[in-house]
């Protein structure tokens, strides 16, 4: 396997982009990322475009070819990727794989979603699944995990709320975040109940947004940039769907992170900064544990210590996370990597983690039989 570097990134702000179509939203960050990589469109040898909802919302089919053509990229292989909330990180994984295996030397990953539309409704695993027909909506499945975590480990509603408070504090330092005003534990607990014990401020908001990553075989990356960032591991796994399965600890999450550590030859103590899939406050706590940032059951107490705040021992979601930025499904997994690259290059401004060398992005998607449909773990590092 060849080594692979990220040589350029770009992203829009996350929030409402009512003036732009789904296609229009995706093009400017491609131009930015190519410019950053000093790469001409004709030098891009493959494209991977992720979106999860545009088919349902706008009837989009194989939109990747249209989007990339607008940015001057044609003729080369283009793949459209849907893998629920990990659509973007899965597209990245495929681009990484193609370069690592020597199929091409450069590739572009474009994640995009436009979902601030009237009557979006609730995200679920699809109207034909019996679980959906029986009333399982995505926030309820995480609410059930939260209840189990509270019952088993004594995690409190205040500890859950602290995740949203911390991520909002981080977001105040990120101009690309949809919500940037500070909130308190009281605000989180008193916001309207969505699915007990998760309140509105415990759940990530919808957003429009697009994010882009440009990759190159490591041997060639310095032609494009003076600051390439190495992909130390890229992992994609699927749930086990064993029955019965416990909601906590989350085996699939642990399995993805463990595999990433093994491939990178690193461990949790090597990480300097992390982005994880905080679709709900409880999610971040579960992911701390799966990433081995703390023992199983200690996630609620970890956030309380401040260790995962900027300035702490292992800052998590310095971008503000999904809880502040919003969650444009197809873009989320790519945007996490954009944040990682900016942290590792020392370009994260007021939210910079000093001297960051190793970054992990954890992302999870979909719901099936009490497990995730997919989970990705990507580790990036400075050479």
């Amino acid at each position, binding site marked *: 396997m060849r080594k692979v570097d990220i040589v350029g990134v770009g992203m829009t702000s996350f929030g409402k982009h009512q003036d732009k179509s789904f296609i229009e939203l995706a093009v400017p960050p491609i131009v930015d990322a190519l410019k950053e990589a000093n790469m001409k469109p004709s030098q891009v040898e493959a494209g991977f475009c992720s979106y999860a909802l545009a088919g349902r919302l706008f009837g989009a089919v194989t939109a990747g070819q249209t989007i990339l053509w607008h940015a001057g990229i044609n003729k080369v292989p283009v793949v459209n990727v849907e893998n629920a909330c990990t659509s973007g990180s899965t597209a990245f994984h495929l681009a990484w794989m193609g370069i690592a295996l020597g199929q091409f030397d450069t590739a572009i990953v474009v994640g995009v979603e436009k979902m601030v539309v009237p009557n979006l409704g*609730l995200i*679920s695993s699809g109207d034909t699944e019996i679980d959906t027909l029986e009333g*399982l909506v995505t926030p309820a499945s995480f609410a059930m995990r939260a209840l189990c975590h509270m019952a088993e480990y004594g995690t409190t509603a205040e500890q859950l709320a602290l995740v949203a408070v911390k991520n909002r504090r981080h977001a105040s330092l990120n101009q690309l975040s949809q919500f940037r005003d500070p909130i308190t534990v009281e605000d989180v607990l008193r916001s*309207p109940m969505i699915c*007990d014990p998760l309140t509105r401020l415990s759940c990530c908001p919808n957003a429009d947004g697009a994010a882009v990553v440009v990759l190159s075989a490591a041997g060639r990356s310095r032609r494009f940039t003076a600051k390439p960032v190495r992909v130390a591991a890229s992992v994609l796994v699927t749930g086990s769907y064993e*029955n019965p399965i416990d909601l906590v600890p989350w085996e699939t999450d642990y399995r993805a992170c463990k595999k990433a550590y093994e491939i990178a030859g690193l461990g949790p103590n090597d990480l300097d900064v992390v982005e994880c899939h905080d679709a709900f406050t409880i999610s971040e706590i579960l992911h701390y544990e799966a990433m081995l940032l703390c023992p199983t059951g200690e996630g609620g107490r970890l956030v309380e210590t401040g260790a995962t705040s900027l300035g702490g021992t292992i800052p998590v979601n310095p971008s503000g996370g999904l809880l502040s930025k919003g969650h444009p499904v197809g873009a989320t997994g790519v945007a996490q990597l954009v944040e990682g690259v900016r942290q590792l290059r020392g370009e994260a401004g007021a939210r910079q983690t000093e001297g960051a060398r190793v970054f992990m992005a954890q992302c999870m998607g979909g719901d099936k039989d009490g497990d995730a449909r997919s989970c990705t773990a990507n580790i990036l590092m400075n050479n």
Partner: protein
Amino acid sequence: MDEPVRDVFPGIFEDSKNPRLIGGHCPGCKRKFFPKPIVCPYCLGPVGATPLSREGVIYSFSIVRIKPPFGLPQPYPVGLVDLVEDGLRIITLLDPLKTEGLAIGKNVHLMVEPLGVDAGGQTCLRYYFTPV
């Protein structure tokens, strides 16, 4: 003449008076499934239909307070219920009239009644578990 009310999902339960959920059973692996899979995912052999236990224990639950899907009442509870005899943990609607006093470990049993609509928007019979 009125058409009979349809089941929320074809073949998912039997006998709405004394209802049982219909799962799958692989005679080779001696495993049960719910719902019944197309083939056994462990040995790829054929799976027979088998009625499951009416009695369960709440493993976890939540009360959904936002605008409900499929014409369900607002709010409604949903849970993961252990069918102890069958060794299965299933996702299911819980009794919408009994949102108070739900707890992990509570005993529940199966009911089937006209409740909400199916994927096609038609009134349907739906299963749920109610506290004993």
